Each structure stands twice: as C-alpha cells, then as structure tokens.
C-alpha cells in the first residue's frame, strides 16, 4: 500500500506556495524566479512593500508638518518603460516622457530622471570587462563566455540554482538600475547636500524582477540603513495609478525630464543600440571588433536559431570567425545554454541573457495582456516601434558620462570603479531539501 497521505484526497498535503502571500505580483515574476522556495519570506515581504500604497504613503508624509519625515522624491524611469507610456498615451516617445514627468511631479516627486545614463555606465564597464576577459581566455577557464548582468531574474537563477558553473562567467558590471541607485544616493545626494536617507528613490521599470533586485543586500547601505533603490513600480502600476486618479493625458503639461548634472544635459531623448534591452550585445560587439581586431562594424546581422529568442551574431574576416556572440532570452533557451555549458559546448565569447522572451520591452510589468495571462504582441510591436524611433547615441560619446567618470568615479581606472560600478555574485545553490512527506 502506498502511504495514507496519497490514498485519500482529504489528507492531501497543502502545497505551500510562497506565491499566495503576495497575491498578484508574484505570479508575474519571470520564469527564472518562479520556482517554489526561490524567494524567502523576507524577500516576499520586501517585494510586496514596493507598492503604490507605499509610495502614496511617502508622498502623504511629505504633506504633513513633521519635517523629519519629509523626503526628497526622485523617480528614475527606465527607457524600456517610456515606449509603454508612448503607446498608452498615443504620443511620440519624447512627448510621452514629458507628460509622465508632469504626472509624477504633480504627485509630489521632485526629480524625474531617465536611467539611460546609468545604462551607459553599465555598457562601458561591460565593454571594458569583456576585453579583459578576452585577453585572459587562454589561462582562465572562467573568463569566457561572459554573460551579461543586467537581468535580475537571470542573476538570481544563476546564484541560486546554477552556482559556480555560471556565476564566475557573469559580468561584474552593475545593472543600469543598480548604477542609477548609486548615482542618486551617492553622487546626486552629495550634489544636493542631502544625506542619502533623506532621498526616496523610486524606479519605474518594465518588470517585477526589478523589485527583487532592489532588495539585494549589495544595494543596501548598512551604515546609513538606506537602500540605493527604495521602491520599484512597474509601468503598469504607474499607469493604473493614473487611471485611478482619472488623469486626462491631454491636460498634462509637457515637463522636460531632469538631469543628474543639473541644467547641463540633453534636451533630446536618445537610446542605445539594440532592440530595447540596452543593447549590451550590440555595444560590446562593436567595441570588441574595434578594440581587438581594428574592425568598424556598422550594421549587425542576426541569425535566428531555434526561435526568435535565440540569436547569433558573428564577426568574420576572410572566412575566419573572429567573434561569435549570442542573445538568449527566456527560460527554455536558458536551459539549452546551461545544458551546453555543462558539456563545455558553448561556442560564444559573449551571451546576452534575459529572463523574458522578447527582451525587456516584453517585461510582464507592461506587456501583459489584461484579459489573458500572456504577452500582448500588438502592444509589444508598438512599443518596439516607439523605441526604435529614438536616435542612437553611443555611451562613449556622451559628455555627461565623461564628466561623471571624472567628478564622481574619479577616473575610469580608479579604485572607486569597483565599488560604485561593479558587484559580486553569491553561490547559494539550494540543496534540494526533501519534504517531510514523499510524493510518489
């Protein structure tokens, strides 16, 4: 006879799924973060605290007399979120950004930034690191392939499940969100002569995984007890807030975004290469082609492998393959990549890895169809068009980045580069602990 607990359904053990604690948002984490027991109770709590209610609470405190509880609110908007608002507002992306800025300021947000700047840092650091790893490839087995580090779902899966097979290969450059956190709570707060705990940093992002990233220990300043990012709200959550307050977009003014360096900054929105995920693959490819082989790459040709989320890019000269990179998005393709890693069969020097099929524009915090639990393809298509409409500017030629490297980081090779712009990964492979009961 099989044990009694399997014979009778009324004795069926209840499947404790940490999902239930948080209602909706847990189910919208990427597949990489969706396994049982991935998130601790504490993490679940911290993620659920990143809510509209929480932000409204902070805004409300600012309206009360107790000055000690007042905070300066800074909102950093991901460039992947702007196309969402462009489509929803029916405006071009630059106008949509200004309308969003007006709305946020009307709530009581003091500064609204575009995180493209922080992404620029991340790209430059990733480029540099790739070159260093490439030069080490013959005597360091962990040097290549290098995996990009901007996706928190991927990072978490690597740390928790894949462990040392993968983590030494992940680029140590901080993600755009993490660098923005640092930029706001360190550089900007100093410029404004505010201590970091007087700043409340809100990030508007395309996905829920970014909420988990915000609670990582690495981005917590234990001395000051402050987080680099206090709260992440998805594009969808902000839009919902606008609907709830019955905001009429036409009645919003066009308010230009702020700049971390004050008045001196772009008045025109620009974007990075690629198709909406900051283009790490494209930027590193072009940089490496130039730096390592003296080749100028103008156009990148993608070869689609088994599906749209597994693509290859190759640099050839005289029939010889010099570089081969891949973009691997989504859980199933990540499994193929990992399977090949275990066998030592990965031909790529760089892989851009993202949890979400379709990349960051398809993040579930904005691309999820309201009616069905699936990606709204028409919406994603429109967002891609809106994103592509922006002019491309390479981070190398951004004067603001140059200034910040000097004034904030104190040089491209300073000792601060590591602490401000780089991070570390932990190996926390969970042992598959046996449940008290055995399920046949």
């Amino acid at each position, binding site marked *: *006879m099989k044990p009694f607990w399997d014979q009778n359904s009324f004795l069926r053990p209840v499947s404790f799924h940490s999902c239930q604690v948080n209602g909706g948002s847990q189910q919208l984490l990427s597949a990489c973060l969706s396994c049982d027991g991935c998130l601790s109770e504490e993490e679940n709590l911290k993620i659920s605290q990143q809510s509209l209610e929480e932000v409204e609470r902070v805004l409300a405190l600012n309206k009360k007399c107790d000055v000690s509880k007042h905070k300066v609110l800074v909102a950093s908007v991901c460039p992947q979120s702007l196309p969402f608002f462009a489509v929803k507002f029916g405006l071009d992306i630059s106008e949509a950004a200004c309308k969003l800025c007006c709305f946020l300021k009307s709530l009581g947000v003091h500064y609204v930034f575009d995180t493209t700047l922080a992404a620029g840092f991340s790209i430059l650091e990733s480029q540099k690191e790739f070159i260093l790893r490439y030069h080490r490839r013959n005597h360091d087995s962990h040097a290549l392939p290098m995996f990009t580090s901007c996706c928190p779902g991927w990072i978490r899966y690597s740390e928790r499940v894949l462990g040392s097979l993968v983590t030494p290969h992940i680029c140590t450059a901080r993600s755009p969100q993490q660098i923005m956190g640092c930029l706001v709570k360190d550089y900007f707060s100093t410029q404004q002569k505010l201590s970091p705990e007087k700043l409340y940093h809100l990030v508007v992002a395309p996905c829920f995984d970014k909420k988990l990233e915000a609670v990582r220990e690495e981005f917590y300043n234990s001395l000051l007890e402050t987080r680099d990012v206090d709260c992440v709200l998805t594009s969808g959550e902000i839009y919902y807030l606008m609907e709830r307050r019955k905001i009429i977009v036409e009645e919003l003014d066009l308010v230009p975004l702020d700049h971390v360096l004050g008045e001196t900054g772009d008045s025109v929105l620009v974007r990075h290469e690629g198709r909406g995920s900051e283009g790490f693959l494209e930027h590193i490819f072009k940089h490496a082609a130039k730096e390592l082989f003296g080749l100028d790459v103008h156009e990148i040709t993608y070869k689609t492998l088994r599906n*749209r989320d597994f693509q290859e890019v190759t640099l050839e000269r005289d029939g010889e393959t010099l570089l081969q990179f891949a973009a691997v998005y989504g859980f199933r393709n990540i*499994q*193929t990549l990992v*399977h090949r890693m275990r066998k030592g069969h990965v031909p790529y020097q760089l892989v851009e890895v993202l949890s979400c099929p379709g990349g960051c524009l398809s993040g579930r915090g904005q691309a999820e169809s309201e009616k069905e639990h699936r990606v709204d393809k028409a919406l994603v298509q429109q967002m891609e068009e809106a994103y592509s409409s922006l002019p491309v500017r390479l981070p190398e030629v951004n004067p603001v980045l140059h200034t910040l490297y000097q004034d904030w980081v104190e040089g491209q090779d300073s000792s601060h580069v590591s602490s401000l712009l780089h991070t570390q990964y932990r190996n926390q492979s969970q042992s598959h602990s046996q449940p008290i009961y055995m*399920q046949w």
Partner: protein
Amino acid sequence: MKESLSLVQRLSAHPDSRCWFVSWSPNGTLLASCGGDKAIRIWGKEGESWVCKSVLQDGHQRTVRKVAWSPCGNYLASASFDATTCIWKKKSDEFESLTVLEGHENEVKCVAWAPSGNLLATCSRDKSVWVWEVDEEDEYECVTVVNSHTQDVKHVVWHPTQELLASASYDNNICVYKEEDDDWECRATLTGHTSTVWSLSFDATGQKLASCSDDRTVKIWRECPAESGQGDVSWKCVCTLSGYHSRTVYDVAWCHLTGALATACGDDAVRVFKEDETADPEQPVFSLAAHMAKAHSQDVNCVAWNPKEAGLLASCSDDGDIAIWRFQEED
C-alpha cells in the same frame, strides 16, 4: 470472471525495493525495468526464460521512476527522483550514459519519446512539463517548458501519429499540448477525474485516450472534430469504468495490436478490459475480460503490452517483482 491471464514468469527484478516501471523495447525483444534501488535492468529472453542481460547502476542518485525506449530502440531515457533525466545509448548488449538533462527543480516523474524520435518530454513534481529536441549528433535543445498544471505532474505521453503531448497530474486534470507559433501550449484541459490522474495511454490510432486515477476509475476520452479553422483540440469523456478497481489505479496500457486495455491497481491486481465491438464508437463499452486478483503481493505500479507479440503483458510491483503474463482471448 474469465481467468484468461496466465503467468509466464515471475522475476525478482529489484530485490528489497520497489519496481516502479517496465517498458518493452520497440522490437519487443527486451524489457527495461527500473526501481527504488536506483538501478535500471534490461531483461531478454534466453531460450524460454527471461533473464537479466544488463544492469545500469550508476546513472542516478535516487529512485528511477520511469524508463522509455526511443522509437529506433537504440536509446533509453530514465527519469529519476534525483531531478535528472539520463539518456543512455545502446552499444550491443551494454548501455552507455550519453547525456544528462537537468533543470527540473525536483523529482522527475516521467519521460517519453515522441514517435518521430526527435522529441523527448519529461514532467515533474515541480508542476512543469519540458520538451527537448535531439539532433543527429545527439545534441539536445530545450524546446519548451510549460506550466499548465497546478500540482505534481505524474505522467506524459505522446500521441502515436500527431505531434501532440498529454500530461496527467495530481491536480486531477489532463492537459493536451500542441505547438503554436514557436512555442508549445496547453490547448485542452480534460477535467472529470476526482483525484490524481496517474497515467495515460493512447489507443493505436490516437483517436482515444485512456486515463486512470486515484479515484479508482479509468476514463476513455475521444477527440472531437476540430472547430472549423481554429485547429483547437477538444476531448470528451465517452466512457468511465467504475466499480472494477477497489484501490487507486496506477497505470493503464492500451494494446496497439489487439485493442485490449490493461490496468495496474493498488489492490495488487492486474485487470484486462476489452471493448465491445458492437457498441457505438462514440459511446464505447468495455467489459472486464480478465482479473488476476493477486498478480503481486503489493501495489501493481505498471502494466505494459509487448508491441510485437499480441497478448504478452508485463507488470511490476512495490514487491520488487516483474511478472510476465499471457492474455488469451476466450473463444
């Protein structure tokens, strides 16, 4: 009750352990078994007796729950509670571990090869169903990971003629999957069982699907004609066999040669049902053709019809034994 099941041989296959599953090779000459002793055994006939030809010992760290032969007979896949699926290649009488598929969070409950030989499906207590594709160079790629069930997935089975996959779960449902665009999706959910669905078996043409459950019934499902243009899969329960099994039905197997339906039950019995040929195919009628009450001394976990020799049936049990039976039709 017609006792037309006679014992051919009993094998002490996985001593001091459970025998979880048996599977015949495509040409019917070999029988693979697996069990709680973490081993896989390959059985073949020598003269009139079945003997152990080979033991695959070190492939898994925990119980091996199911084994499956590739359609060509050159590969064996094994699904284990150690969360891995091992692919073995047959080299004359021996098997060599070719590759290990990892990724499930916990116990893998089943593995199945598609009739094309290129696709392999697995399912797990982690509620997901995975499909891998293998190429001519034995390289594997993950095709999809689907999460349609809300509980442990017990079994996966491929349709015999179409690229269609079905899964059975502790959530009482059966899901049917098809490829849509560039990914696989659950296109139909078959509800009706009132407890865990343990196993599934398609008939020879794939028009009918048999399922068995902890609710002590076996259900027969029939594919309904597709809605015009939609291509949506729709299945209806056309028959429920109830009152025959006194405990959980752990396995069901449809013979592709004779149409006979065998079941493995927690009451230690093996039963064989035959379809009444005069009945309306839309409302099939099955009658009990054989009932071997004490087929084993403990729960029967699996039944498998030999694909080439009509009437030859293998069963295995928590008692660690394999039993080989001959089912003969009454005249």
